[in-house]
């Protein structure tokens, strides 16, 4: 690999002032339409604000009540564990695992097979989320689902008997494309000669992956895990499939927030849970950093 990473200096002669001018438009938009409403939402989390009723006319600051209520609510705790399992199963293991596997197998291949696989994987990623709900309904339905017809298992209620597994498999289908693309790019940075050397030295595929590939793509793995975890934590699409049911067995946190904020009208409590989701994401991010830090000193250090 050529040592052409971002230099400590200023290769393009941008200068601080011009660099600031480049960043400014994005920063203004983010400031107005992201930071401001986000902070406002976090503030709402400290109130008993509701969409309608008396608390809408005169919301009161209730301090951390929403947080203590959530943390002592068994429904929230169940939802939290479901979400962790959902993110772990569908994003970390599923999307990243399958995405890497596909990238590894397709590496070096060209032609119609590669194009076909990439095509269908990407199609699952870009179809509108409003549409994919219906697609998966048609696949998993108890009475006339395609899957039951193929497996000759009439009447098997996938969404009811295995709700969490169903939405995990669904999300693997939905989001693998991003990981696949990212790892495809990363693997192109692994010189074939390194792999060849390792193979001649008698290393099996697992050893090659561990000793040659992983050190070179560590930073991509980190980027990948950070983003797909964040997206999966906020993924509302499973609601279309299971509605969070049966009996809350697939009520992941975004669905929980929707149920209390939009259906129940408790916007204050919903905002508090949103902030809790943010904190949990932060914990995940710190864990990834720790696991993948390797020789890198910290997130602020120069890229590997």
């Amino acid at each position, binding site marked *: 690999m050529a040592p052409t990473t971002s230099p400590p200096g200023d290769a393009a002669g941008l200068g601080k002032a011009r660099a600031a001018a480049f960043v400014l438009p994005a920063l203004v938009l983010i400031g107005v339409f992201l930071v401001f409403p986000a902070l406002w939402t976090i503030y709402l989390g400290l109130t008993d604000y509701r*969409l*309608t009723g008396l608390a*809408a006319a005169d919301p009161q600051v209730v301090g951390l009540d929403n947080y203590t209520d959530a943390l002592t609510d068994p429904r929230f705790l169940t939802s939290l564990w479901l979400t962790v399992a959902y993110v772990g199963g569908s994003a970390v293991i599923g999307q990243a695992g399958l995405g890497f596997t596909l990238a590894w197998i397709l590496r070096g291949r060209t032609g119609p097979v590669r194009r076909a696989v990439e095509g269908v994987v990407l199609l699952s990623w870009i179809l509108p989320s409003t549409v994919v709900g219906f697609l998966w309904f048609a696949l998993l339905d108890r009475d006339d689902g395609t899957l039951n017809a193929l497996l000759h298992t009439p009447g098997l209620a996938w969404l009811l008997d295995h709700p969490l597994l169903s939405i995990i498999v669904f999300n693997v289908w939905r989001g693998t494309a991003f990981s696949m693309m990212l790892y495809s790019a990363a693997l192109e940075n692994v010189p074939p000669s390194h792999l060849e050397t390792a193979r001649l030295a008698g290393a099996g595929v697992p050893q090659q992956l561990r000793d040659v590939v992983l050190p070179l793509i560590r930073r991509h793995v980190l980027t990948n895990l950070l983003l797909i975890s964040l997206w999966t934590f906020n993924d509302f699409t499973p609601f279309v499939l*299971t509605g969070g049911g049966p*009996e809350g067995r697939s009520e992941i946190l975004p669905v929980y927030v929707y149920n209390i904020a939009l259906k129940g009208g408790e916007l204050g409590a919903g905002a508090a849970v949103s902030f809790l989701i943010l904190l949990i994401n932060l914990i995940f991010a710190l864990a990834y950093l720790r696991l993948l830090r390797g020789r890198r000193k910290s997130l602020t250090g120069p890229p590997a």
Partner: protein
Amino acid sequence: MTLPRRPAAIAALTVLALSSCGTGAPAGTEDVTLIIAANSISGGKNSESADWIKRWVIPEFERTHQNVKVLFQPSGVNDEQYKTKIALDLKSGTGADVIDLDGIWVGEFAQAGYVKPLTDVGGPTVDSWEGWSQIPQAVQGLGIFDGKKYGLPQGTDGRVLFYNKTLFAKAGLPEAWQPKNWEEIVAAGQKLKAAGVPAPIQINAGTAMGEATTMQGVLPLLAGAGSEIYTDGKWTGASQPLKDVLAFYQQLYSAGLSDPKLQQEAKGRDKSFAQFAAGKIGILAESDYFWRSVIEPKAGVAPMADRDTAVGYAKIPAKTPGGGIRGQDFVSMSGGAVRVLNPNSKNPKLAWDLLAFMHSAAAVKSQLAGQARISPRTDVNTEVLGADPMLEYVAEEVLPVTAYRPGLAVYPQVSVALQEATAAVVSGRGADEAATAYQSKLEGLVGGADHVTAG
């Protein structure tokens, strides 16, 4: 190398083009604009109602009111989403002049200060409106909160037990069936089961069906056990009537008379419609909506070509004769939409004129457009309901015994708690256990045991 120029140029053009098509109703010189908002849209949900507003209300009203321009703001999405949008509009002091609301939202909107009594907005002419004498007191109740009239009802409905006469004949049950108590429902279910009907009785349960569980299941049954969900400032907790309701659910599922999975599926209610139409469900508790729009032979979502001969309907009986609310033998629940005035309307008097016009006999008749449906007006009902014996039955037999839900902000959450209690029973937990869990949840929702009746 020309690529980068293009997105930038497109973005700039887009921004220019878009900022020029901002908000702002056409502000004529002295023309007045009124806006109607409703949860209906041409080609989508409640299409007929949207077409009626566009093709009849607007031209007719504009014809008699020179210089007034009426616009229609359709939505046509699910109720919670529509409610959110309207609440946001009213909260920010904007929104349409005449707004569709579900009657059940009136209380919470009034408490939030989003809507005001009609006389406060429309002035004294409101009280002298000719239509009041045509709308039965109970139906007016849909738009009343704390004794004040906030909205004009658009119509109402009633809940009955629909049954499949073909299946009844196979099971040796009478063609004209009217159970007198809950036991007779179960007995009919058992005969249907013996005759090979897969799911003899469908009374909605569980959280997936949402409000349909509360409205078609728990509340009519609770009324039949002699209790309303909210009376004299208190919510009904784990009282005997509520335990009776949950025990009845338990009886249905332990005897295998209902399909528990159907209650858990995200699209369970749609499936229950399809299964009834396909002859797999014998008895189904539903609103007259089921008759009008679901199994309607031509345009229904689960049409039954032989609806008029094959489908019967019966009143929902009390647990035992005389055991219902107000000592009734039969019970039902009703709901319905209302139209309210926006307190921020710039032309409140004209807005009231428009609202009253939309509820005149001519307008109501035009909205029905030959379809039978229970309108708010007695004069219209006597004229049109004769065309459909089922709706006439609801108007004459069911509405006199019906009840309405309390329009308070916390009601939707109480409703979810009730749904959860039925879900627990469906999945095999005991009725008492479910009732106890409901009681503690309810106390948390409504602000402590003081607001709950128990025992």
